């Protein structure tokens, strides 16, 4: 362990707000920067302006779905108006507990929204990339959208149990039985492909 590392606990005063800008894991009050986590203090100096003070923990910070982030989710049920999903990953960080979300029919694709049918887009068990558009209101939980080319189904299984391969933006095919099934298929961006 590096002896020069400085650890802190929540509420510890790190420095004056004039000396640095508050980074992650900190908050500002009465002109001072305080730590809001128990962790290690890091100071990164920027080329221009003040250094950034932040407090980091070794374990991944507990992310929450926020508006605008891309999440990976699993479809758990569908009906004619929406699909219910479980959010599993935020970006590439796995969540410690699942959060439920909803993809409404009109948020499935960007064009010809009135012709969308949920069961031709998702099936329970599909893995879907989606973007959070709202934290929801009193009736619903997180609202998600797949109305972008990069968003939609990335992995799905056919009735025969094989993983299907996408053949167009709206169809996938089973490699064993060669049956075609409808899906709202995502054009997966290279940064999400790990192989």
């Amino acid at each position, binding site marked *: 362990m590096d002896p020069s590392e400085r650890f802190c606990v*929540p*509420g510890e005063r790190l420095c004056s707000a004039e000396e640095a800008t508050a980074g992650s*894991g900190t908050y500002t009050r009465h002109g001072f920067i305080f730590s*809001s986590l*128990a962790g290690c203090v890091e100071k990164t100096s920027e080329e221009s302006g003040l250094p950034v003070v932040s407090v980091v923990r070794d374990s991944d910070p507990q992310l*929450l779905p926020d508006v605008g982030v891309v999440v990976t989710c699993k479809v758990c049920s569908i009906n004619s108006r929406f699909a219910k999903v479980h959010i599993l990953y935020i970006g590439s960080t796995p969540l410690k507990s699942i*959060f439920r979300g909803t993809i409404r029919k009109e948020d499935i694709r960007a064009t010809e929204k009135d012709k969308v049918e949920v069961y031709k887009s998702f099936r329970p068990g599909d893995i879907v990339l989606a973007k959070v558009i709202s934290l929801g209101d*009193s009736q619903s*939980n997180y609202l998600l959208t797949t109305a972008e080319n990069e968003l939609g189904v990335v992995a799905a299984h056919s009735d025969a149990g094989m993983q299907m391969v996408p053949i167009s933006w709206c169809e996938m095919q089973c490699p064993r039985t060669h049956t075609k099934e409808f899906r709202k298929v995502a054009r997966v961006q290279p940064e999400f492909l790990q192989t």
Partner: protein
Amino acid sequence: MPVDHRRLCGPEESHAPALWAAEEGGDESPRDPWALRPLFARAAVLSQADGSAYVELSGGTKVLCAAWGPREAPEPPTAAAAAAALRMGRLQCDFRRAPFASRGARRRPGSTAERDAERDLAAALRTALEPTLQLERYPRTRLLVSVLLLQDEGSVLAAAISAGALALADSGVQMYDLAVGCALCRGPDPSAAWVLQPGEAEERRAAVRLTVALLPALNQVSAVQGAGSGGTPEDWAEALCFGLDACYRLYPVLRQSLLQATCRRRRAM
């Protein structure tokens, strides 16, 4: 010889043994009112929980606490509650006493009296811990703190508050500050002085009891809960100052234990 279990040959009238129980203690040597009971605190003791802490007072009070980071909150029952949930997360506290926690007869875990006592303690814990959390960073979620009281030898709520704050900090949720709890009480005779961190016997005999919780870095009081035979505001103010001062003296212990836990976690990486 077979015994007839259906027939009891006890006396017709019976009384609870508590009536004849000798009043124990009472002749303890007077304590230095300024003295604090040694406190042992250790964070990150449970591997399954997101964060956890164990706090023990030298008299014997033992508290184990686990904290779980933001989880999906259940559907709020009303529109107003939902609007509040959208703005900030909710802290949920659960307080359990082990059936064998206190002296004397075993308490039945599910009984109404026991449940009420646990619920009161949980509510008090929640008011004490809520100000430490940056709940507006966790909309639509709940944070859970669960306290298990293993042994009750006085100052239970205070120990639970300290343990709860440690566990929350250890779980990595964003907080404004730690909370340090301290209990104090005063005996029935008018000349009695306030003593810090009373034991169970002292607490039972006390005329006035008070539990305070302090956010040391912000110098804010997050919990005050006291009751007893009346006193002037000045009396209470004096007790409060005394208790807060004790909290400041306890803070380094808690801070040190949290730093150690953070170091341990880093080394384990």
